[in-house]
């Protein structure tokens, strides 16, 4: 017989899944926001820093920094996806298995 919602809620694995997933989601959200607003505040309060020329051409420091913000979001999402696929899907499968 299938377990009720209350029984699943009491399952320590379910509680572990919910808390670790919530923690990871919010901490990665925070990291993303810190990177993004750090970038915006840097533009707002120290535009000269980003305007420093690099090399002999027209390139300034702001271009690689902007690119780094974009690349960092790729890396953060990649980390989240790898964690979700490896840990959470397995945990969900176990919980479903135990509730049957």
């Amino acid at each position, binding site marked *: 017989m299938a377990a009720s919602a209350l029984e699943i809620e009491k399952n320590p694995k379910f509680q572990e899944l919910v808390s670790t*997933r919530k923690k*990871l*989601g*919010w901490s*990665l*959200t925070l990291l*993303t*926001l810190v*990177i*993004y607003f750090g*970038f*915006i505040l840097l*533009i707002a309060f120290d535009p000269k820093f*980003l305007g420093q020329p690099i090399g002999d051409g027209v390139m*300034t420091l*702001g271009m690689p920094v*902007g690119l780094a*913000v*974009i690349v960092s*979001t790729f890396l*953060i*999402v990649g980390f*989240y996806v790898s964690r*979700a696929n490896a840990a959470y899907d397995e945990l969900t499968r176990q919980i479903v298995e135990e509730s049957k």
Partner: protein
Amino acid sequence: MSRFKSLVPASLIGLALAAVSNPVLADALAGQMEKQETNWVAIGMFTAFVIFTLGITKWAAAQTKSAAQFYSAGGGITGFQNGLAIAGDYMSAASFLGISGLVYLSGYDGLIYSVGFLVGWPIVTFLIAEPLRNLGKFTFADVASFRFGQTPIRILAACGTLVTVAFYLIAQMVGAGQLIKLLFGLDYAIAVVVVGVLMIVYVTFGGMVATTWVQIIKACLLLAGATFMAFISTSAPRPCSPRRWRFIPSIWRSCRPGLW
């Protein structure tokens, strides 16, 4: 479901760069764009793309039989395909035309907007995607009304959607209408109606399968076009080798035949 809004055909987008990067023509809302003479090459490209994508829509409509298929393609889209489709969304008229115009007009300040779009997406992934999947629902309104009162939540969600649309879709429609006017020499009112009807047809009949495939094709076209333009515009003029590559048109080799 942001994919549903950005079906401005890709064939227009590349051709539009010249129009947007000219500050005199950039004032699209004021309707200052001159009506052009009929451009048959542009009309041909546009018509071919529309017929091709309507064909995909017809194929997809034949497969769509349930809400799950309409909203999420029955779960039959792989991660890579969905990634390409979302990339097509991301590189839609907003970033491809709007950002390039902004960067042209205000330099680095314009670039901030393209970073801002991208940063919003991981947060959606971290906080909204999983609950949506776990509940087996398709829209934000479905999820929110699962736990709260149906009617007020749905009214609230509809208001949010309409406010977003007012800022987002209308600007895209105006842009697309101006483009068609510029390219085809049609009246602005007719151009907007044509674009609007096409968007509605794509989404209503094809659902998520059609929109996903149209976006995948759009993403590939835009990636190819933008990469090509980036290489051409940043490569230094150099003479062409007459022997090795003579069968390739000189513009594709980024060389100047006269310099040899």
